[in-house]
């Protein structure tokens, strides 16, 4: 029992550590400020809070949508249905997963809770990861904004979709091969196989308690999902479902939201305290420009729906390949998504995933530099005529 408790509070201990670092930094800044060693005027604080809050405002609605979809999947879609839907052939599965975004437009903030839920529900890792990486790119809203940002350069849209899809499929398949065991932290996935019942929320504490009647009463003292499972006594199934969905959404918001805010905090620190000119000074060579753009994509953490407008600003300074690197890496991974992933997945898994994403995107960007991208526009031109 003690062992179990220890594991459950593990993530909290990590949180305490990170928070104490933040508090020490803030105190340090405050101290430096009052002793005026470095002049830190109110403008820096204003910029920090403006950028921080603007990313929060931009992200929170999509975090909520993600949490809601994840909860709906949790309550209404059973594991049996999921196993039935998933194609037996792995390659077909991955291919379909990479195209789901076309009918399911979600941006990269919302995709993390949904993917997490899908993996818990038994979707194979390779398919779930392909889904997670491709949806923020292969998505009508994102492709349309790319089209508007790169008016007259329609090959950019095709290149983004094509390379993004290839990248997601490759990374998804590779991670499926490289990572065989469960990607979740131990306490999250510990789930009794014996007694599947309606309230099986995957939070791993439905210890075999024989349900005496329909109202399943079980004790969720060690629940990591942050909500009480006192299932309502309302007999109407519809209302009960809605209540369950809302309470799960609330829990999911807590679970993902705290890591989201932490990620936004880090990203804002990077943006306010490291001048962009410093990153740009790494260089504008063929390979170094790709690195610059990928670092920017990782640090800036902008929504995939708008990053095309930012990429456009670099069009004059960098090669098309590096711009494409920015456009495909940004939606797949950035600081806030890495922190969110760390919140529910094993560190070793996240490290593997991030490493794979960066390597594959780099290779794709190099290929894009060699590949005559403008040729793609001729293809579309032909199609339009």
């Amino acid at each position, binding site marked *: 029992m003690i062992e179990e408790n220890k594991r459950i*509070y593990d993530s*909290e201990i990590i*949180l305490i550590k990170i*928070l104490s670092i933040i508090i020490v930094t803030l105190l340090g800044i405050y101290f430096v400020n009052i002793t005026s060693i470095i002049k830190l005027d109110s*403008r820096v*604080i204003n*910029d920090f*809070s*403006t*950028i*921080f*809050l*603007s*990313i*929060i*405002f*931009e992200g*929170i*609605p999509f975090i*909520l949508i993600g949490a809601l979809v994840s909860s709906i999947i949790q309550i209404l879609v059973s594991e049996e249905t999921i196993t039935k839907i998933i194609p037996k052939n792995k390659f077909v599965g991955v291919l379909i997963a990479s195209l789901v975004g076309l009918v399911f437009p979600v941006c990269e903030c919302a995709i993390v809770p949904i993917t997490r839920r899908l993996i818990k529900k038994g979707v194979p890792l390779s398919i779930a990861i392909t889904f997670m990486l491709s949806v923020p790119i292969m998505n009508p809203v994102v492709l349309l904004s790319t*089209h*508007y*940002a790169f*008016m*007259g*350069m329609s090959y950019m849209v095709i290149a983004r979709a094509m390379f993004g899809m290839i990248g997601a499929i490759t990374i998804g398949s590779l991670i499926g091969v490289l990572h065989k065991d469960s990607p979740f932290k131990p306490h999250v996935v510990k789930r009794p196989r014996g007694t599947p019942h309606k309230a099986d929320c995957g939070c791993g504490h439905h210890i075999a308690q024989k349900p005496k009647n329909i109202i399943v009463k079980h004790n969720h*003292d060690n629940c990591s999902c*942050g*909500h*009480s499972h*006192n299932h309502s006594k309302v007999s109407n199934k519809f209302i009960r479902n809605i*209540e369950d969905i*809302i309470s799960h*959404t*609330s829990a999911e918001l*807590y679970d993902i*939201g*705290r*890591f989201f*805010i*932490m990620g936004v*905090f880090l990203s*804002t620190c990077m*943006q*306010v305290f490291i*001048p962009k*000119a410093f990153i740009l000074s790494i260089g504008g060579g063929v390979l170094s420009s790709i690195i610059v753009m990928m670092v920017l994509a990782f640090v800036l*953490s*902008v*929504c995939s*729906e*708008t990053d095309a*407008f*930012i990429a456009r*600003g670099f*069009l*004059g300074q960098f090669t098309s390949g590096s711009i494409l690197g920015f456009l495909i890496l940004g939606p797949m991974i950035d600081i806030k998504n890495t922190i969110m992933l760390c919140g529910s997945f094993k560190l070793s898994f996240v490290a593997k995933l991030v490493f794979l994403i960066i390597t594959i995107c780099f290779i794709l960007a190099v290929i894009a530099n060699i590949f005559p991208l*403008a040729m793609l*526009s*001729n293809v579309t031109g032909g199609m339009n005529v």
Partner: protein
Amino acid sequence: MKKKVNLNELIWFLILIGFTCYFYMIISTNKLTLFVHPKMVKYVKFALYFFIILVIFQGKNIYAIKKAKKLKLGYIMFLIPLVLGILLKPEGISIDSAINKGFSLTSQLKINTLKHKHTVLADGTEVCDINEKDTHSTDNASGTLKGALESISLLKETTINMTSGNFINTYDDIYGNPHKHIGRAINIKGFIYNQKGLNKDEFILSRIVVSCCAADAQLVGILCDYSNEKKFTEGTWVNIEGTLGEREYKDFKSGEVSVIPIIKINKLEKTDKSGNEYIYN
């Protein structure tokens, strides 16, 4: 196990109420557009309604039957945005932060040449060009039409009035054909930005462009020539009247020479930043 207040649920309830109030406050005072593009407002409104629903459902959980449990520390993370948001008065992104992101006078030019090189239908007529650009800057059809008409009338008149509404289109147009606009009068409001490598009398009249949220604020600007004894500090807001011209510009980093538009200022007056001065892309 008897019914008593569950501290964790109570804190979560209060945090949700805090978020609801903060979101309501920021939407009702119209300060939201200092943080995000107006097109994002509907999503934030959705979040507000959702928070209200969550608060209502969370209210039932305060008296949940539960044993005493350790407090969750993750709540602290949610307090950071609340505290920052409520304590600090929103002012929008500062000019320095936008300058920090870097700006090149020639990048817009390069974008235009790249576009021209790859356009399959090289129609070349200005009206078409502007129509096309307008379609992406506004969402609804009536807005597009209005914007297009505005831009066309701009082309016909001799004086160009650059306002927040037509800034991006006019800017694209001036950079697209610097030669065509030579000698035309122009009125703009913006702030002064002194870039390295400019002549003594020159500065860049700039504005901040936001395409999604304040985190992606970028600088845009046109080179200005003002031969006057009085110099202004960086970040001063001014209204200018001048004539468009062009000049050869040598990039101080890459050394490339290109022709860029320049405004020869006839009249310059100091003005105040009136609230929200972002240009939304």
